[in-house]
């Protein structure tokens, strides 16, 4: 075990941080939010130039050959400034799906395009009734000659509007809740029968509800094996949990720094509020939550390549509970310590609060994973 970043990792973090400190001030971010896409294409190109879009892909696919650890470090830097670009759905979610399940042809067609910045992707699995149950898929794919016809709808697809291509889960067999019978498809976002309704999510990023009616795809668009999509979805979600755990750590750091700074400058009853012990101890608690959360992000990161699926799921569940609770505690405390200004849209802290809130309920909240862990107690 070694917690020290390597020289390469340090350089990576430095260069990402430098780029973001030039381009991602809170006021600049507001500007990106106001663009039609809800993020900055120029920043997206910079991500591509820096090699971030190919970070976890093998070098033969134009990637950087990085591991989950590099992704965690980059997501942490993103979390500090609340990056709006569709990095997470494209590189982490769809990227993992293609990495894990894609054929050689699919990988060579898609991964280099993602890495160079010309292909953005979405991961369309969630459905309105499913909440956190991964097997609750009612979207169907029926045989249609040598291809398939997709019908159904997917909700709250992160950056679904921006995506050029979607990874879509659909039932090719079995009933709702069956583990078998779920298949993943690669679907062009502009294919006939795909309708996207985009909207703003609470965390300032764009999301979309996507309806599929008689969308025709070929056999070559099946990602992985027919009917065996669930284990792939699980891998995708585990990678997503590890990455957003890193992002939460960055957001907690930013909130804690902001709150500490505020406590030094905000004067009440003749003294900075940071001179009062009751405030100091809250700050100490927030710091401890951040560090315990960082440990959990590390747990998720070190677990996602564990070949033992049961152990992997167990550790990821632990990490998800821990990071979710830490993020919630720090967010709520940061707003409380700021007082009224923390409640305002114009001030940054509330935006961090809302990103943590969105992450917390992405792929399952602490209560959901706690129930899973509880089932293993004995």
């Amino acid at each position, binding site marked *: *075990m070694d*917690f020290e970043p390597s020289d390469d990792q340090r350089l990576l973090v430095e260069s990402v941080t430098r780029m973001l400190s030039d381009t991602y001030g809170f006021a600049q971010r507001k500007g990106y939010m106001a663009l039609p896409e809800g993020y900055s294409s120029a920043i997206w190109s910079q991500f591509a130039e820096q090699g971030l879009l190919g970070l976890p892909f093998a070098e033969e696919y134009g990637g950087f050959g990085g591991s989950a650890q590099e992704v965690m470090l980059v997501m942490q830097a993103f979390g500090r400034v609340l990056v709006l670009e569709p990095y997470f759905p494209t590189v982490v979610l769809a990227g993992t799906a293609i990495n894990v399940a894609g054929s050689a042809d699919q990988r060579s067609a898609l991964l280099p395009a993602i890495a160079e910045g010309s292909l953005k992707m979405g991961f369309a699995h969630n459905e309105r009734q499913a909440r956190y149950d991964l097997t609750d898929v009612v979207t169907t794919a029926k045989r249609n000659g040598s291809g398939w016809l997709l019908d159904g709808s997917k909700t709250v697809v992160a950056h679904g509007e921006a995506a050029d291509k979607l990874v879509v889960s659909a039932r090719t067999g079995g009933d709702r809740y069956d583990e078998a019978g779920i298949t993943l498809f690669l679907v062009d976002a502009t294919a006939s029968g795909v309708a996207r309704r985009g909207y703003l999510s609470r965390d300032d990023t764009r999301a979309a509800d996507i309806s599929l009616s008689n969308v025709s795809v070929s056999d070559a668009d099946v990602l992985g094996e027919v009917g065996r999509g669930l284990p792939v979805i699980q891998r995708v979600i585990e990678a997503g949990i590890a990455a957003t755990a890193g992002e939460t750590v960055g957001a907690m750091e930013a909130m804690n720094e902001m709150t500490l700074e505020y406590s030094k400058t905000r004067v009440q009853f003749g003294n900075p509020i940071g*001179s009062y012990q009751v405030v100091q101890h809250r700050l100490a608690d927030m710091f401890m939550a951040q*560090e315990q959360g960082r*440990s*959990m992000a590390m*747990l998720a990161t070190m677990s996602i390549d564990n070949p033992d699926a049961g152990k992997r799921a167990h550790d990821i569940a632990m990490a998800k509970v821990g990071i979710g609770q830490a993020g919630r505690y720090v967010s709520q405390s940061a707003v409380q310590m700021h007082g009224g200004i923390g409640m305002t849209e114009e001030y940054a802290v509330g935006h961090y609060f809302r990103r943590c809130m969105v992450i917390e309920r992405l792929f399952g909240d602490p209560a959901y994973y706690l129930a899973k862990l509880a089932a293993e107690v004995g």
Partner: protein
Amino acid sequence: MDLRFTPEELAFREEVRTFIRENLPADTRDHMKLGHPPRKEDTVRWQRILNAKGWAAMSWPKEWGGPGWTAIQKMIFLEENLMAPAPELLSFNITMLGPVLLHFGTEEQKKRFLPRAANLDDWWCQGFSEPGAGSDLASLKTAAKLDGDHYVVNGQKIWTSTAHNADWCFLLVRTDPNARKRQEGISFLLVDMKTPGITVRPIISIDGGHHLNEVFFDDVRVPVEMRIYAENKGWDVAKYLLGNERTGIARLGKSRERVSAAVAMAHEVNFGGKPLIEDQAFRQRVAQLQVDMKALEITQYRVVSAYDKAKGAGKPDPLSSVLKVKGTELLQATSELAVDVAGPNATPIWAQELAAMNEPDELMEAGSAGTGSYLMLRAASIYGGTNEIQKNILTKAVLGL
């Protein structure tokens, strides 16, 4: 950064587990499995077995009998040892006095005391707290006046754990009552507990046990060569001792052991017509504790690894305050769980009358002993710097307020 255990670390855990399983005396194991604290002879015997194996002087350099472990190995050992459950290494000897002697001691002091401390030939205790000096340690009053080649010590210490077992005591005394700052007039002495003028009086704690004492010093003569480091510089030594590598301060293995004990009991007691273990609320409470223990486990690895890397800097790591606060919160929460599981079985005191009256009944005995553990662990957030003090340290040292 490589956040996985290496194959060597995994093999080491197996080696430690096997060694403990094969060498921990059965009567010690049986006694502790029920939740009782180790008896003096359990601790002495086990530390000697570990010392013979070369594992007792865990954090000392090899030339003084240390095993040369990495920080991660130390944590693995401590965790396995507590989970066994086996008696802990006597911290006064191993993590307090040892590093102090290695850092500040003369060659002669090291030679005289270190090997005996490792083998628990001398049982040490810590004479720091006083009736008027708890969290505010620097206000201590016990006085030492120089008289020829001896100090003459007068005063009182309190909360002195295991003083009744101890052969020696490391003691903070005031050698300059007129120092400009309170911290400047303090010295650090080693005192033979058999010296005339020392009186040890038991303090019975709320668990009914005798762990704590008052120690009175009445014209106790301590040779000058028993002083560590310079006169009036004892505060530096004390700070080093308190802030020094606090490997194991979280006692995570103990928390894990308490959860295992609670889960084992939960299989045998009833809740709504079923074993308690089947109750969802109970299971969630256990799962939450497991999550919190996991986070602390990794934080602990991070802190001790960073400490190992920074060796020589000689500065206490303020992050050890995180381990103290979170570790003791978990010790309290897990021991509380065991008491809650036991229900009414938590209430009898496992004293002689009950032990004599009943057939051996492990469920009842574990219920009772678990309460002792719970009651005694209320002290965990008080000793070694209260958790409130730890938060003060964090605000100053980490947040810079």
